[in-house]
């Protein structure tokens, strides 16, 4: 009796205690706008950092709400409008730009100065500041921008900051100097890595500056609260110079790890703007009410296959690569996904008309078979199994290998591996029985220059063109920090030509002539078939009726800014 009641008493105490513990530890954060007029709830991919100089989802959020750069993209996304810089003038040789900053303030009242910009760019380019992605993504846009001395300073070969083309002449004048003229320069300045950071805050709180209680920014919104891995709340920045044009009273972001649930969250009214995952698109299109709220951004992503380096030289023969590119049967492949379209050119046709003719390919199974035979693999005989290395299962890739097998008689398979394995395998020299490509995707760029000089640019293409025999040398050089130089030296002749064409195009001051030269370079690149286009993906969003001002534009992962957005939700 005693034992039982003691045990029961203990059980009761334990239960009570655990209930208390459970409920007290919960840490609820109740700051949802809950549909009040002028609020918007958006489902957003989880963000781990709000540092715009670090390649992560957070940098796009910085660009669309929390910070403002010298210039901002216009509505269509093909030009710029004044941001912090009120006006600017280029020099006669188009190499130097002088920006005159307006009288604007950080959210804590301190003025935004040219020194803030200069300090931020120095932080971006300082090699020892490198966080994962700082110099391997965000700052790699700078060579595309062409700031004088930027690449050298980043590589560590130039250590004197005063030699770099970034100068704050006084509090409100910033002078940026380019190595060569760049017609895309102003558009490039809208990239998140070129946003200013509050020098005084980052120096005071180098680790804690991203916390909501410390937050200082100069964008139309500031960070009110951030529950990591769960939600974020933004409120209008009272110090913003154009606050009259900020029409929302609050923005709630639901941070999600599983973007596939977005459709459900929209229909249950837990979010008002979501990125719609591909499986739900058809369902939404078939419903009248939902279809009205559907918005698509064409050519948001380009899917491609990039060649892997192997001990087996089979894929080093351009004929084999071309054969595979021509026998893919892309029309069949896109039947597996409702939001994708065939891609015949690395530069998308829809956003840059004429691209397919200028620098694309034409499918031709007969020719592909001939090429394969010419290369020494008639009917596929003797060719090892062609693999596609991917980090996630993908129906389109399965369709591609299927079509290869059917059209060319070869053996092909998709190799799905875990992310870390994928990352490591991509760089390795593959075994003698393993040849193939890795599957990747890249977000759209707005101009010819961007598609040629920034994405699959000469540096990247040089690395791709290094032969299997030279690859171990490249890896060794990379470990010692001279990988890119090695690649340049060992690049194929076609890619060397591509490099020269891009350099020539980059230095051409007349933008029409420059575009022609870029197209020529893109054609050279396409004909190497080192990178093969597969499909384009249109990104679909759903925007609830009652929300206006969401101007979707091409070229960014979050293609609209919150500044012009209006909301009538919650009025009923």
């Amino acid at each position: 009796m005693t034992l039982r009641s003691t045990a029961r008493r203990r059980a009761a105490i334990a239960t009570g205690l655990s209930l208390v513990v459970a409920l007290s530890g919960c840490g609820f954060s109740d700051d949802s706008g809950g549909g009040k007029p002028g609020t918007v709830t958006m489902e957003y991919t989880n963000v781990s950092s709000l540092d715009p100089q670090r390649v992560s989802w957070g940098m796009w959020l910085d660009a669309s709400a929390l910070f403002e750069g010298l210039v901002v993209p216009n509505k269509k996304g093909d030009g710029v409008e004044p941001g912090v810089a009120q006006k600017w003038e280029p020099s006669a040789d188009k190499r130097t730009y002088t920006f005159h900053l307006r009288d604007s303030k950080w959210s804590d009242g301190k003025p935004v100065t040219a020194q803030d910009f200069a300090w931020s760019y120095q932080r971006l380019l300082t090699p020892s500041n490198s966080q994962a992605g700082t110099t391997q993504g965000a700052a790699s846009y700078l060579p595309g921008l062409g700031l004088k001395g930027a690449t050298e300073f980043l590589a560590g070969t130039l250590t004197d900051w005063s030699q770099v083309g970034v100068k704050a002449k006084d509090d409100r004048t910033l002078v940026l100097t380019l190595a060569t003229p760049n017609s895309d320069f102003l558009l490039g300045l809208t990239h998140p890595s070129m946003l200013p950071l509050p020098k005084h805050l980052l120096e005071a709180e180098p680790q804690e500056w991203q916390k909501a209680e410390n937050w200082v920014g100069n964008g139309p919104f500031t960070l009110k609260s951030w529950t990591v891995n769960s939600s974020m709340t933004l409120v209008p920045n009272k110090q913003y110079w154009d606050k009259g044009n900020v029409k929302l009273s609050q923005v709630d972001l639901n941070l999600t790890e599983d973007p596939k649930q977005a459709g459900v969250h929209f229909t249950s009214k837990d979010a008002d703007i979501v990125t719609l995952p591909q499986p739900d698109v058809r369902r939404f299109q078939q419903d009248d009410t939902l279809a009205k709220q559907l918005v698509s951004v064409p050519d948001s992503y380009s899917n491609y296959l990039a060649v892997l380096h192997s001990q087996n030289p089979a894929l080093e023969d351009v004929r084999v690569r071309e054969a595979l590119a021509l026998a893919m049967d892309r029309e069949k492949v896109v039947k597996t996904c409702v939001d994708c379209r065939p891609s015949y050119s690395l530069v998308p046709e829809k956003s840059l008309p004429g691209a397919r003719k200028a620098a694309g390919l034409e499918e031709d199974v007969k020719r592909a078979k001939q090429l394969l035979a010419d290369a020494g693999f008639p009917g596929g005989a003797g060719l090892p199994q062609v693999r596609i290395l991917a980090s996630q299962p993908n129906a389109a890739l399965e369709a591609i290998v299927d079509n290869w097998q059917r059209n060319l008689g070869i053996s092909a398979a998709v190799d799905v591996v875990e992310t870390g394995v994928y990352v490591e395998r991509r760089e390795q020299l593959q075994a003698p029985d393993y040849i193939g490509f890795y599957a990747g995707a890249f977000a759209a760029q707005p101009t010819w220059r961007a598609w040629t000089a920034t994405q699959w640019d000469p540096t990247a293409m040089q690395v791709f063109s290094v032969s299997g025999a030279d690859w171990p040398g490249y890896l060794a050089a990379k470990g010692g920090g001279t990988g890119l130089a090695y690649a340049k030296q060992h690049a194929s002749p076609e890619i060397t030509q591509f490099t020269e064409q891009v350099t020539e195009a980059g230095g051409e001051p007349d933008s029409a002539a420059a575009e022609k030269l870029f197209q020529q370079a893109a054609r050279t690149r396409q004909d190497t078939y080192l990178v093969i286009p597969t499909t384009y993906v249109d990104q679909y969003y759903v925007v609830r009726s009652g929300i206006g001002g969401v101007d979707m534009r091409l070229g960014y992962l979050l293609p609209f800014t919150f500044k012009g957005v209006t909301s009538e939700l919650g009025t009923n």
Partner: protein
Amino acid sequence: MAEAAVEAVRAESQWRLAWRRFRTHQLALASLVLCVILVLVAILAPVLAPYHYAATDYEHVLAGYGESGHLFGTDQLGRDVLSRMIYSLRTAFLVAFTSQVAGLVLALAIGVPAGYLGGRFDQILMAGTDVMFAFPAYLFTIILVTVVGSSSWAVGLAIGVATFAVLTRLIRGQLIALKVRDFVEAGRAMGAGGVTIACRYILPNALGPILVTLAFGVPAAIITESGLALLGLGVAPPTPSWGGMISEGKDLMLASPHLLVPTTVLFGLTVLAFSWVGDGLRDAFDVSAR
């Protein structure tokens, strides 16, 4: 020696008795029949499935129930769902049985000595399983899968190794609880040695919970595989596995429910069938003539 003979007779009739009891448990019996059917279907998959599991048909992608000759429709590549379900049974059983066998072997090897001998030995072994318990199974599975591959065997082995700690603890617990019982004292008094006591006296009496755990282990392994597939570590495509089909199907759940519903029903039936068999086994071994 006479005692040994009596023991043998007793043991035999114990099993007979158990079977007789099992037979009266209707649900368990029906489930056992179902399990046998499922295993047969898995073995006979190439004969029974109307299409090959990797046969694609781009003209009929995401067909619904009964469309174009596909009873349960097709998936995103136009592959027949019914055929993939049948083959996926095979994958499921491969994974589950491999994992249970691997787990049982490890658990017996560690749990029996630990429970029976106790003392220092027990401590060391239990510390070892504590470590296994706390393991980041994800990392461990990646390494194993990288080394051995993502075939059904490899995934089954990985699951078995990652989860044997629970069974070990159970076996050890049973050993501890049972070794203090009177019949063990009696056995010792009759002069039986350690191994005999462990194997012939204690283990048969521990069989109930072990069998129940194994019967549960089968569906647990299948569920674990589906979790691994969500993380990208399941059996590699195009081999159909329930994990892969469910994780694909749940994304298209509202648009194309035929991808998820039949598979989930089959999945659930298998899990239930094995669970009820385990139930029946448990009841059957419970009442012994003692």
